[in-house]
């Protein structure tokens, strides 16, 4: 198992497999959705070949960790098989649900942040961690609605899950921004709530992505987390705040919709990498001093 480095990685999608295998491009690490490889032996064979050259993280979308009916044991077994074969640095999924009454709805559906839901999520996370024999990372989703029944805020809820289960946190900065905008909240204040709820060391990975802005039938503006564009300036600014608080941390560029050429993903990763290096420089007094002498501090 190669640990995921505190550098900028790229979300790898199957259309880029052949190009990556042919050219072994400059990339610090890759992350994939394991559900795309559970029934596709051809894609998995390619991924195993790629894995020989790069650290890899598995970012699941199908565990449905918020489902009241529990987690599908078959899905845990399928994920375990992939984990054993690919030896990823991290395995992660979302604070959401998608399975109800035997029906799988392919979306990250929101939870009410109640004590009941907290107990459900913790039970499910513990079951998965036991099944995989390793800790998970849990990601905050983008939200488009808020339930009236809420005992905790989202940061408090995820913090409690991490404390009770020992899982890590995957902080998606774009999701913080999208959720805040959709609730007409200042994204900077929303991010500050995350800083208050979590110790910096609880965050093991950061996600960055682009999103869409759409106008609803009532003329209101909604932001949709479609992973279909470059990271916007406001999210880059929030990311810099996260790095100042957390220090350098593995950061992923995600892109799923209207997948561009691989070079575009590399360029986005380079923008994240530059901020990671700046944060590392700023975070070390010795380096800061050295940089100052070299005239790089300004």
């Amino acid at each position, binding site marked *: 198992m190669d640990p995921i480095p505190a550098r900028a990685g790229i979300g790898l999608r199957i259309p880029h497999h052949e190009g990556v295998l042919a050219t072994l491009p400059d990339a610090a690490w890759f992350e994939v959705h394991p559900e795309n490889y559970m029934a596709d032996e051809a894609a998995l064979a390619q991924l195993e070949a790629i894995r020989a050259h790069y650290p890899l993280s598995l970012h699941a979308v199908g565990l449905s960790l918020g489902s009241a009916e529990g987690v599908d044991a078959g*899905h845990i077994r399928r994920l375990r098989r992939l984990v054993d074969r690919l030896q990823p640095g991290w395995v992660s999924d979302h604070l959401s649900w998608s399975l109800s009454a035997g029906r799988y709805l392919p979306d990250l559906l929101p939870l009410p942040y109640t004590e009941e839901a907290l107990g459900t999520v913790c039970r499910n996370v513990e079951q998965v961690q036991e099944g995989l024999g390793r800790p998970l990372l849990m990601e905050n989703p983008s939200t*488009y609605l*808020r339930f*009236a029944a809420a*005992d905790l805020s989202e940061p408090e809820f995820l913090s409690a899950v991490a404390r009770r289960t020992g899982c890590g946190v995957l902080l998606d900065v774009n999701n913080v921004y999208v959720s805040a905008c*959709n609730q007409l909240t200042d994204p900077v204040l929303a991010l500050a709530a995350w800083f208050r709820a979590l110790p910096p060391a609880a965050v093991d990975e950061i996600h960055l992505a682009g999103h869409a802005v759409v106008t*609803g039938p009532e003329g209101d503006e909604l932001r949709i987390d479609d992973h279909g564009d470059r990271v916007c300036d406001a999210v880059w600014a929030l990311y810099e705040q996260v790095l100042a608080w957390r220090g350098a941390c593995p950061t992923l560029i995600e892109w799923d919709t209207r997948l561009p050429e691989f070079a575009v993903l590399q360029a986005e990763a380079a923008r994240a990498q530059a901020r990671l290096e700046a944060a590392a420089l700023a975070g070390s007094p010795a380096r800061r001093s050295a940089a100052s002498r070299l005239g790089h501090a300004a």
Partner: protein
Amino acid sequence: MPPESGPMALPLALLQQRMAAALLAADPARQALEETLFAGVRPGAVGLRVHRNTVLGALSHALRQSFVSVDRLVGEAFFDRMAIEYARAAPPAAPQLDVYGAEFPDFIAGFPGTERLPYLEDLARFDWQLDEVARQRGAESAAASGPPGAGLELEEAGVRLDFLPSLRLHRARYAVDRLRDAILAEDTTALEALGAAPAPQAYALWRSAAGVKVQPLSPAAAAFLAEALRGGDGASALAAVAAEVAAAGEAGEAGEPAVVDLLTREILTAGFVRIRTT
């Protein structure tokens, strides 16, 4: 401060069941939940609409990836209509969406508006089978690490035939390989001719290093392969070939190629078989 739990708090399991039902409902009257369940700055219905679009869009996209020629034939808007109706009637049970849609060919058979496309169901089954074979390992990696495929011994010839694990025998009522080619090439003349009347055809499909291969088979070769893939031995497979040849001869529909000639032409030289001397 987050609001306190109110009287509209539902047990989590019930909330999720009702939300799932609302997201999949076709009837607008059943797509909403009580607004008192929500406390955002926008009505809960707005958020539900976003989730409904995501769920149905993702399922339609997954089906479009598997049923490529059906999509091209009927067009994006009509395909979405069929896909969304199917998704509502038969949502997936598991998150591996690349294996979602096995019953879609049955569902679209006779779908209103497709009366002039009698081959649509066969075309969909062919799309599905091609997609399934595409997800198998190629010949090289399968030989290295995959489970073994079917095989049989031809004792009199002193050889054993090992078939690639990805090999499938597919039967259709129309020449679906040529129909698919015509659709993807937008050759409407060929499409009209091929779709005018049934023309039953069997195929061998397998995954090579270069991609999915399709080989039309004579009825006799298909009978041989069917017996082999069912786990039959060499003798029973040869008997199946002989029966097909005899039936074709009696009916006067085909010549009478010798069994050995037929096997050599359609099976022994095919890319889906490895031959070992015994």
